[in-house]
């Protein structure tokens, strides 16, 4: 079986890797590129822990083949902070205690970033529907939603 060579842009940097045809993007990120921030929860697109942004759209990296990443721009949780400076979403998640075990947090942050990239002023309802594909079994979502809305306000300069 031949491996595929894939060139993509990951968090703004050119990246290359080899993958098997059936390997998912999530597997390639974690196993080939050592980007282990994206988590494998369900492997069926239900939990959102593996969320990444591909060409501006948030997707489940467990439901995308790694070979499909050829030529695409991918943003993962590792691209959110700037060096040691947390992204406002990350900061607000900490301030609002919007995480407990933390397994869902990378996916929630990436999905929330995709929301704010497209809608800087989402309502609570819009936020809840947007994040419906990110399951958290600890927090009950209220703190997550508050953190996202607070981060949105900060990013708007409010």
């Amino acid at each position, binding site marked *: *079986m*031949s491996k*595929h060579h894939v060139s993509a842009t990951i968090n703004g940097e050119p990246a290359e890797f080899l993958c*098997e*045809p*059936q390997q*998912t993007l999530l597997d390639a990120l974690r196993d080939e590129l050592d980007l282990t921030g994206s988590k494998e929860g369900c*492997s*069926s*697109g*239900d939990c*959102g822990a593996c*969320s990444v942004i*591909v060409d501006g*759209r*948030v*997707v*489940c990296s*467990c*439901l*995308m*083949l790694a*070979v*499909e990443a*050829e030529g695409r721009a991918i943003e993962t949780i590792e691209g959110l902070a700037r060096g040691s400076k947390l992204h406002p979403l990350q900061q607000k998640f900490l301030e609002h205690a919007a995480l407990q075990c933390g397994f869902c947090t990378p996916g929630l942050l990436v*999905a929330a970033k*995709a*929301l704010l990239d497209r809608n800087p002023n989402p309502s609570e309802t819009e936020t809840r*529907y*947007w*994040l*419906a*594909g*990110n399951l958290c079994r600890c927090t009950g979502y209220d703190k997550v939603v508050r953190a996202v809305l607070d981060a949105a306000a900060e990013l708007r300069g409010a």
Partner: protein
Amino acid sequence: MPMLDYTAPSTVEEAIRILSGASGTAKLLSGGTDLLVQLRSGRTKPDLIVDTKKIPGMIGIRETDGGFVIGAATPGAMIGECESLKKAWPGVVEAANLIGSTQIQGRASLAGNLCNASPAADSVPALIVARATCIVAGTKGRREVPVEDIVTGPGRTCLTRDELIVEFHLPKRPPRSADAYLRFIPRTEMDIAVVGAGVNITLDRSGACTDARVALGAVAPTPILVPEAAAALVGHKLDEKVLAMLDGAARRACKPIDDKRGTIEFRTKIAGVLVRRAATIAFERAGEQR
């Protein structure tokens, strides 16, 4: 692991050549939101995956003579962002956008939803009532197939092994036309339809229905067109008597199964309720154009 290969042809002709020449089982990949789950569970064991998304036109929406052409692999999110499509075909757009989460919407396509051939596929009843057709390409050329003729049973379609859907066509709409799609799930998001109902109508200046299509999902082995329910609407304004006729015709067309999502009795009753509500929404939408 079984031997599996992946290819991404750049033209429809190349895709057809690959499909017709494949020695084992080839599977088409659009958004992959069903295919990757089935690959992982072992429900499907293809030898080759043919990714359609590098073919020009497979992703995108364009307007033609008042109608719309939607590329087969266009993701739901893109469909939801197309304001002119939403205005002309609100029911088609709301049905496509009901499929899965934001993440799923970033990938899931109409061709995938149709060819996965689930009786509960949300976009299918809406496309059927819209008189949407598929352009199917294969070794014998291209054919235009009404959406209702594609699915032949759960997980089965009428496409031959060398064929793929290239695009969907939505016709030009007469004035005072509108559609609506509703589904019942026991929560507000992220679930599979217990029943789905699509209604598409055209009204005359007085508000009476001159043309109607009604389709149901998840109440039979395939999504079904229900001409008897449409007949209950044609010639009438919407009143309780007409809604009762519509409700009855929809219920009589149901041949559902009992499963964990709903009983036969429940699904049948809900089909009647949903067509009433979808028809009411479609009439309101069409009425606003008068």
